[in-house]
């Protein structure tokens, strides 16, 4: 019997007739912790590398990280199932009300959390208030080839569909919104609706174990809705009432 999960759509205050409310399902039983999603996300979204020292201070910028914990001690020790954590795109997002400049805002049409880089002034209140630690901050001009000469050639693979962020700006997983927009535009040019599976974020695209499913969660026929609808499903820190758009399927037996 599937456990009743609060769905973002149940109390969503969204406009009618929009192209969809997007969500993700992560199957922790399948995730092998291989980090392909981390690399894929970084390459797709112009996520900078910060170097060893800044990474040591906890300033690494990846929008998705894979958590693992240990249970017990040797020899009866077990690793908990790998857990990829990215922005959960909460319906009731704690990051939004604390932003003084409305840089962290809610998309009314798609019920996503947005980070508007050109508004952000770097107060970092949002990161402070995010229970998932999903937000990362540009402590330096990590992407400026004038300050990092090694980027002069590396910058050639930057994705032109994603803004290159600079110092003092907060950022986070966007559900690869550039891919959503691209799919919407393609669908509109062909005068049809977006097909299920047409929008694939970089992480889900790369995942060798196919542990990540993405799609519309307001449509019960999609793969992602069906995948979420099992007894293994749960939301991270459900008790906070954030109503995330990401459902985790428990690992283990």
């Amino acid at each position: 019997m599937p456990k009743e999960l609060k769905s973002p759509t149940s109390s969503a205050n969204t406009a009618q007739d929009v192209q969809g409310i997007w969500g993700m399902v992560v199957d922790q039983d399948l995730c092998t912790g291989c980090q392909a999603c981390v690399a894929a996300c970084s390459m797709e979204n112009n996520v900078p590398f910060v170097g060893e020292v800044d990474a040591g201070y906890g300033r690494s910028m990846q929008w998705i990280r894979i958590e693992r914990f240990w249970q017990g001690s040797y020899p009866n020790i077990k690793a908990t199932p790998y857990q990829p954590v990215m922005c959960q795109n909460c319906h009731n997002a704690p990051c939004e009300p604390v932003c003084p400049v409305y840089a962290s805002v809610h998309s009314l049409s798609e019920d996503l959390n947005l980070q508007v880089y050109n508004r952000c002034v770097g107060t970092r209140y949002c990161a402070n208030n995010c229970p998932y630690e999903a937000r990362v901050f540009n402590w330096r001009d990590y992407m400026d080839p004038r300050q990092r000469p090694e980027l002069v050639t590396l910058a050639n693979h930057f994705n032109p569909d994603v803004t290159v962020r600079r110092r003092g700006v907060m950022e986070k997983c966007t559900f690869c919104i550039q891919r959503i927009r691209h799919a919407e535009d393609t669908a509109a040019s062909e005068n049809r609706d977006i097909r299920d599976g047409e929008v694939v974020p970089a992480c889900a695209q790369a995942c060798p174990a196919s542990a990540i499913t993405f799609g519309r969660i307001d449509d019960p026929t999609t793969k992602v809705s069906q995948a979420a609808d099992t007894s293994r499903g749960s939301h991270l820190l459900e008790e906070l009432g954030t109503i995330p758009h990401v459902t985790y399927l428990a690992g283990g037996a």
Partner: protein
Amino acid sequence: MIKKLFNVLNQPLGRIGIFIIALVVLSGAVWGIAQAQKPPQQPIQFPHNLHVRLGIQCLYCHPGALRGPSPGIPTETKCWGCHQQIAIQGTELPKLAAYVKNNQPIDWVPVAQVPDFVHFVHRPHIAAGLNCEDCHGNVSNMTVYQNPQVMNMGWCLNCHRAKTANNPQNNPTNDPAVAAKLEALRVKLTDCSTCHY
């Protein structure tokens, strides 16, 4: 300390000083913005008016507008497609001939630009029935292109709102179904993530 400073500034002279500083900052900003709106120097003074009057469609040289985000600026090979049949005369055509001869790209400077935290896509705008001149002005009167207005977010949003307002122009019969569609479209078109990501 702060109180002392406040007292100094609260004198007539202090007030005038504050006023002058504010004026300088403001006029500097206005000057800077005006400077940013000036059309840049182009490598060739391309006469748009002449080409438009000859009946060449915008999309002939800027075909990307129909298919994707960027309309594209033609390379010298496109120019040469026609101009190799036409006498090389005047001040500008020899420049083109030189680019072609040296197989050099013409470094056109894009004028109608948005900042790179804005992702503008031409295709849906054309699909929605906008004509090029709605945003780019009457190009048949321009030699070197300049923007007819400042292309900023207010200007974008004004249009997005106007095109989705439930008014007799958009919804002549006041049909509630159309009104709902317009409402949804307005939410979508005024959503930050429509352009910023």
